[in-house]
């Protein structure tokens, strides 16, 4: 169970606060730069983002793997004393990889695409966005979390509205209103959590996440209502069916860097919120509503996949594929077992890598061809073979081909949800097939066939673009072939979360299934909550099994 180990793990340098504050200070610095030297804006903002990325890398290296269940590097400063609000940041195995992903994606997004106009404001907003995203992943205080969760809307709103294309004003406003509506009710939920807990225990009001999660003083009914208010906010952010409709508009009209960040980082704010705040704060309600969320996730998978198949716009296609991918994360998460949660977490990172890269590639196609209509593209493989090859790898990772990163996450998520919700998992698995269909079909139409007109002249990947793609490709292969370092850092935190749920929910035990490398379907048991295995013995077995499963897949390559 996570506890604040401030004394043992905090370091003299408040690195997490620095992670949050550095980009914001960078944005201020940009505002102070003289306007007549536009080339500085990109360089300075890139430098700031690289410094931040370097700090995340340092955190990753210094991160204590054995103690991944505990919050590390904790910074805590009082913020609003009268309400027990503090600026508390911490990192554990659940947030570690999302922070690393955020740190890595921002410099890439800044470097990859130049601002079309007003570079100063553009890069400043991107840096503000990074502050917000870092803050969400690191905040351990409900107030601070809400502040960051809301603040990310502003830069993204301006990025879509000012540097977007097409119906950008509509898309930006829709994005803002949808997400703000979700979080408006969450604010009431946050306040209700704090005040009701204080009323039950008689302690002063506090918004400290760890304290509230361990107190569990709320009545079942109250907790369920409050969980719903949180769930709505996160469902909009994820986005879950049926509150996903802002996503295709926002993605299609956003500038490329905006899409990369939106898909790579911002969609995870919702799934991360479910993990860190939904399940952790309201374990009973999470178990109670899990079937509903799994159902919505599955619907999202199938719906997103079918909708993606229909798209004529390449970017919109990728956007809908995000809806499907995020569905896998949700069903994995709400399977509430080690495999599912790990699969969900891995998939969050994987989706950030592969969909981020896909959006970049689509953006580069648009830069060259000024269209994203699939029907107007064709035969790009001939003039741009390297481009096509890179696109192919990234796309296969997005489909979830074994050996690439997408497979590991999806596989684990499906295993987890199969143990808990067998039929939903079977339906969800067909989503993988449809994903192969729409992505391969799109690839075929865009890259194969004869290249005519402008298509024949499309430039291949430049050195700079190749260098930008390199970290993506490295991550895709590394996490596909050897995910152990990633998984072993998240596993203690995931197990701790499940133990937390088991401790606070009387009739819940982790849904498990015996999974051996060559298991037959009939041997699987443990459906839903009537698992036959006690949680104590199954923990260690599960993890070793799941790793076996992964290794066996690697062997199959």
């Amino acid at each position, binding site marked *: 169970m996570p506890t604040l180990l401030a004394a043992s793990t905090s370091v003299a340098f408040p690195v997490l606060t620095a992670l949050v504050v550095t980009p914001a200070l960078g944005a201020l610095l940009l505002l102070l730069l003289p306007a007549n030297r536009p080339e500085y804006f990109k360089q300075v903002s890139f430098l700031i983002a690289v410094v931040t990325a370097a700090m995340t890398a340092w955190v990753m290296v210094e991160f204590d793997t054995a103690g991944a269940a505990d919050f590390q590097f904790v910074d805590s400063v009082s913020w609003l004393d*009268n309400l027990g609000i503090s600026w508390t940041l911490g990192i554990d195995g659940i947030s570690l990889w999302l922070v690393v992903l955020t740190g890595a994606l921002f410099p890439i997004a800044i470097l990859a695409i130049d601002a079309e106009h007003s570079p100063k404001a553009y890069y400043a907003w991107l840096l503000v966005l990074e502050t917000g995203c870092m803050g969400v992943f690191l905040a351990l205080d409900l107030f601070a979390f809400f502040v960051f969760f809301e603040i990310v809307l502003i830069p993204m709103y301006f990025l879509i509205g000012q540097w977007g294309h097409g119906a950008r004003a509509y898309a930006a406003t829709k994005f803002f209103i949808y997400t703000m509506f979700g979080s408006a009710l969450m604010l009431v939920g946050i306040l209700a959590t704090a005040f009701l807990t204080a009323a039950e225990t008689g302690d002063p009001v506090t918004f400290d996440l760890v304290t509230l999660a361990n107190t569990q003083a709320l009545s079942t009914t109250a907790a369920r209502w409050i969980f719903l208010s949180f769930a709505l906010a996160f469902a909009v952010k994820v986005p879950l069916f049926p509150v996903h409709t802002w996503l295709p508009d926002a993605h299609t009209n956003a500038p490329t860097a905006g899409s990369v960040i939106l898909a790579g980082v911002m969609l995870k704010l919702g799934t991360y919120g479910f993990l860190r705040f939904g399940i952790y704060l309201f374990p009973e309600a999470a178990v109670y509503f899990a079937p509903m969320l799994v159902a919505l996730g599955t619907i999202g998978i199938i719906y997103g996949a079918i909708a993606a198949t229909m798209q004529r716009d390449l970017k919109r296609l990728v956007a809908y594929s995000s809806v499907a991918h995020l569905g896998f994360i949700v069903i994995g998460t709400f399977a509430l077992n080690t495999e599912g949660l790990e699969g969900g977490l891995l998939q969050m990172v994987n989706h950030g890598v592969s969909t981020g890269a896909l959006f970049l590639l689509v953006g580069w196609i648009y830069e060259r061809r000024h269209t994203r209509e699939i029907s107007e593209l064709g035969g790009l493989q001939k003039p741009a073979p390297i481009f096509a090859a890179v696109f192919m790898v990234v796309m296969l990772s997005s489909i979830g081909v074994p050996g690439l990163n997408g497979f590991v996450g999806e596989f684990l998520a499906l295993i987890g949800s199969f143990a808990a919700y067998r039929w939903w998992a079977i339906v969800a698995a067909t989503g993988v097939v449809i994903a192969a269909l729409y992505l391969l079909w799109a690839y075929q139409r865009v890259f194969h066939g004869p290249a005519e007109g402008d298509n024949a002249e499309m430039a291949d990947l430049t050195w700079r673009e190749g260098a930008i793609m390199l970290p993506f490709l490295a991550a895709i292969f590394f996490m596909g072939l050897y995910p152990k370092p990633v998984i072993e850092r998240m596993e203690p935190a995931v197990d701790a979360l499940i133990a937390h749920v088991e401790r606070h929910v009387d009739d819940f035990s982790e849904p498990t299934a015996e999974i051996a490398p060559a298991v037959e379907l009939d041997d699987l048991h443990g459906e839903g909550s009537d698992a036959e295995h006690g949680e104590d013995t199954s923990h260690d077995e599960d993890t070793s099994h799941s790793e076996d499963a992964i290794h066996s897949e690697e062997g199959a390559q």
Partner: protein
Amino acid sequence: MMVAQLLPAVERPELIWEGLLPVLLLGGGALLLVLFRSLVRALPESVAGQVAPAMGALSVLGMVLAGGFSGTDIPLGSVVDDLGWVTYLIGLLVVMAVVAWGVARLGLGLDATLTAGLALAAFSAVWRLWNDRLEIDGPMNIVGDQLGLDGFSLVFTGLIALAVVLVALLLDGYLRREGIDGVEMYVLMLLSATGGVVMASANDLIVLFLALETLSIAVYVMAAMHLRRGESQEAGLKYFLLGAFASAFLLYGIALTYGATGSTNLIAIRGFLDSTTLVDNGLLMGGFAMLLVGFGFKVGAAPFHAWTPDVYQGAPTPVTAFMASVVKAAAFAALIRVFVVTFGAYGSDWQPAVAVLALLTLLVGSLLAIVQRDAKRMLAFSSLGHAGFMLVGVQAASDEGVAAVVFYAVAYSMMAIGSFAVLTVVSGVGDRRTGLDDLDGLAQRRPALALAFTIFLLAQAGVPLTAGFVAKFEVIGASVSAGSYWLAIAAMVTAVISAFLYLRIVLSMYLGQADEDADEIRVPGAVALVIGVALVVTVGFGLVPGELDTITREAVPRLVSLGSAVTLGS
């Protein structure tokens, strides 16, 4: 029951002059100002440029004197102890020189300088009263049992004084641009502010009524002050007619309450209600209803809001800023003192009514704002939404609720003054160009102005890291803590709806195409200063809300019984 027995025999009330100083500075200053300017209509050419800076320097001295008189020590008196008188005097001279230079640099007129100086002196008095009197002696009565001095009245007095300073700076450039320069506007504003201060500290319904009339009548005239604009005349007339109507309701409410409780004194009423169970409370309920209508009109709560859009739109923009800050804050102060404190025991009777008012106000404020095409009118409707939020805090009827409303009033005043300051300069000569399309492309024409306006609008929408968010957070917190979940949810949903309205303005500033032959927007230095101050407060208390939060929590209204130590809390 014999009324005469309840009323104390007529005798000279005990006066605490220090406590009365802010009122005297604002009210007396207004009268002296009008006297001085009717004697000296125009300054001699030779000294015209030097008088205002000199007065600015003198007002620093005034702040020191007012602070020294009202507290046990002069402002920043610790400097004397630490570094000696010489250092303090040198420092004082330096500050005076800087202020004089600043006034000259901004080109402030004499009237605006004097008004701002008086208000600053009042603020300095409030500051010392808070630190030296309130912290030590606790709440007290300053004029018999008619006027009280507590943290609540002091915070509102300080807020009103600050708002007067900012609006005076706005008025200076505005009146000259419109060619209606004169001392009248400043005098009326000071008188109105006096009324507001008395309203916030009144312990008697009659005093409260007189203060409300002082506040209102001055504002009626201010709204109609732009003689060459039809809308301004219309606004003044509308405001006057409906305001007079509302005053009648209020007066009738006072009469009914008097009939039910036997007193117009809030202390006596509270004592009566606490100690007596009424068999038939029809009269009292009628009084509640009438009083609520009267206050509802003043705070601009639906369904008594019909005047708001027309008056806010028609009035000269700086006057609109004054109405949104001072008038609203003072009305909420009185509402809280009468309902939450005095009628606290009957909360279960009036809280549902306030809840309905809050809900209606929130809905009207957010829904009707969406369809507007004029930025000033939009902000008028959004002021309804804010009034609704503050009513949600009132409905909680708790110390937290009151603290939240005080916080909200401070935050909203600053956001509103900032927003209307931007509109003052954008609207150009004649206050004409306040339409949404007049804001098109402001980001290209005036990036800094557009950014400032965006921050004010986002703060009003309740975006975190602004004071507007903390204010909403506190109000919703108080509401949730009082168990009014549905009201809290409704308030948040309408906040999202009104976000749409603020985004529309932001969109037109950033995405709209600027009219090629639009006049250049001139931003006088004084207006830039106002925007800067409002911005610092809005963002500052958003980032570090602790200080203001502590102050608002200490600003609990108290009724102090005469001759006894019993303090009746809320």
